[in-house]
């Protein structure tokens, strides 16, 4: 080894002084003979001392853990169950943010523009015309005449028009309630061509408030792309509106959730939204249902989640309880097929006002 070799190896050598590898022994031998390299070695050790020195890091408050738990308001009940589970519906989270108003208006504008642009779309007849903003093709899908039960559809992107929802007779066990079953309608096979309204709204909302530019990130030019991709934000507004699963005043309640899912959190927002967060017992899957009063049909779409690295599938359907129409948005880290199957399974019951 010559001096140049030592200069190249010295950092690794100093990081692992206890090694007895042949190269280490060679370096050690060289250092004993070469004064310049010995000085280089001493300076590297001094640098390492400074780099490793954490003596200036203050001691974190002993109450830190308690403060975080208090901030999360998850003291837990007698059964050890949290009052607020670690589930914040992505959709709810997005709409709780400041971009809610702008995003909502933009979404409404997009829907209106779509309706104006596609004059057939609002006409709810025996056929559903699915707009395709990317071309002149329009798909005509017949609506089944009798819709008394859900049909299993495997398409990841589905849309239920209000006309496709029919009331079913309430069961004896729910005398004061009305059950409504939701059906799905056939969807175009070329779903990749469908306009992604929800996706645009999510992306736009995210971009308005959370964009990080390359030069803004501390990691330098070669790392910024990666960091920007995993940028995250959150809402701390998870306290006032939350209620335990037992005390929720649900406007609409989902039934028939698969047994592997456990209700983690549910709450009503000020806008009469009802949000249900479920997690599978193994902790690997989660599903969020957002039920919002709605009369505007929008289309379910595949959306990117906040981190932009994982695909969160969103599926939108419409139900009707009494005179009130609701938009039900399913969001989860399931596959599109699993989420669709789940949506086909779930039924709803609600108070008739």
């Amino acid at each position: 080894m010559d001096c140049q070799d030592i200069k190249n190896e010295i950092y690794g050598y100093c990081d692992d002084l206890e090694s007895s590898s042949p190269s280490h022994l060679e370096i050690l031998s060289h250092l004993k003979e070469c004064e310049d390299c010995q000085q280089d070695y001493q300076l590297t050790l001094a640098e390492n001392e400074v780099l490793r020195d954490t003596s200036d890091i203050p001691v974190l408050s002993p109450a830190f853990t308690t403060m975080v738990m208090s901030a999360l308001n998850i003291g837990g009940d007698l059964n050890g169950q949290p009052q607020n589970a670690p589930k914040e519906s992505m959709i709810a989270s997005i709409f709780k943010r400041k971009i809610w108003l702008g995003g909502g208006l933009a979404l409404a504008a997009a829907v209106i523009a779509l309706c104006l642009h596609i004059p057939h779309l609002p006409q709810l007849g025996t056929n559903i015309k699915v707009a395709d903003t990317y071309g002149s093709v329009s798909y005509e899908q017949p609506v089944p005449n009798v819709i008394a039960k859900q049909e299993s559809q495997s398409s990841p992107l589905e849309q239920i028009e209000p006309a496709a929802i029919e009331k079913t007779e309430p069961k004896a066990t729910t005398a004061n309630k009305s059950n409504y079953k939701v059906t799905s309608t056939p969807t175009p096979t070329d779903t990749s061509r469908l306009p992604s309204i929800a996706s645009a709204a999510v992306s736009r909302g995210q971009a308005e408030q959370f964009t990080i530019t390359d030069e803004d990130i501390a990691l330098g030019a070669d790392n910024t792309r990666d960091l920007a991709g995993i940028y995250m934000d959150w809402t701390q507004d998870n306290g006032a509106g939350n209620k335990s699963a037992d005390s929720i005043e649900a406007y609409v309640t989902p039934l028939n959730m698969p047994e592997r899912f456990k209700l983690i959190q549910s709450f009503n927002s000020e806008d009469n939204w009802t949000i249900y967060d479920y997690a599978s017992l193994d902790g690997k899957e989660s599903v969020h249902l957002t039920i919002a009063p709605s009369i505007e049909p929008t289309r379910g779409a595949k959306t990117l989640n906040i981190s932009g690295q994982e695909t969160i599938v969103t599926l939108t359907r419409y139900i009707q309880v009494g005179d009130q129409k609701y938009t039900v948005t399913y969001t989860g880290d399931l596959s599109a097929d699993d989420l669709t199957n789940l949506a086909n399974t779930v039924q709803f019951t609600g108070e008739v006002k």
Partner: protein
Amino acid sequence: MLTDEMLTARVLCGEVSAFEELINRYKMSVFTIIYRMTGQYQEAEDISQDVFITVYQKLHQFDNSKKFAPWIHRIAINTCISSLRKKNKVILLNFDESYNNQYESQYHFNYGDPDLFLRRNELRAEIKTALKALPESYQLVLALRYQLDLDNQEIADTLGVNKENIEVKIHRARKSLRKMLLKNWEEKGDKDGLSGY
């Protein structure tokens, strides 16, 4: 002992104490990263709290087949960047000695030789000055490597880049540190910065 990933699964099933355990495991590393980036105790503590709140709320997005540590450290870095950006603050990696009076460093000083003691302190200060002059990206990888004692793969997972990139980055950072140190000595006319060390 339960792994981090097992704890996350338990949290998702509603076990509060599992999240407390995660906080206890990671509060110091999270705080260290953020303190190095902010240089302010209170701010670092506040942001650290935000990090754990974020982690709790985003836990359902965590891929349980992967390691938890890089995930939470990544959130810590991004939350800190976000917080500093909202305050229009310059991001800095702090290696000041503001707390050194309280927390004595554990150096093997030769207290019998005042000159040597002073010279070593001076050298440490010079290295810290050089360190602070490095690009933030270099400071961050050095902090992750030497302050948190993460290996290259762990740093790569934290920053979402490949391991080779980190190896190169750390090597360049070390070279830059040395270059900066020698440059400062040259400007001071101190051609033998190591004398007496």
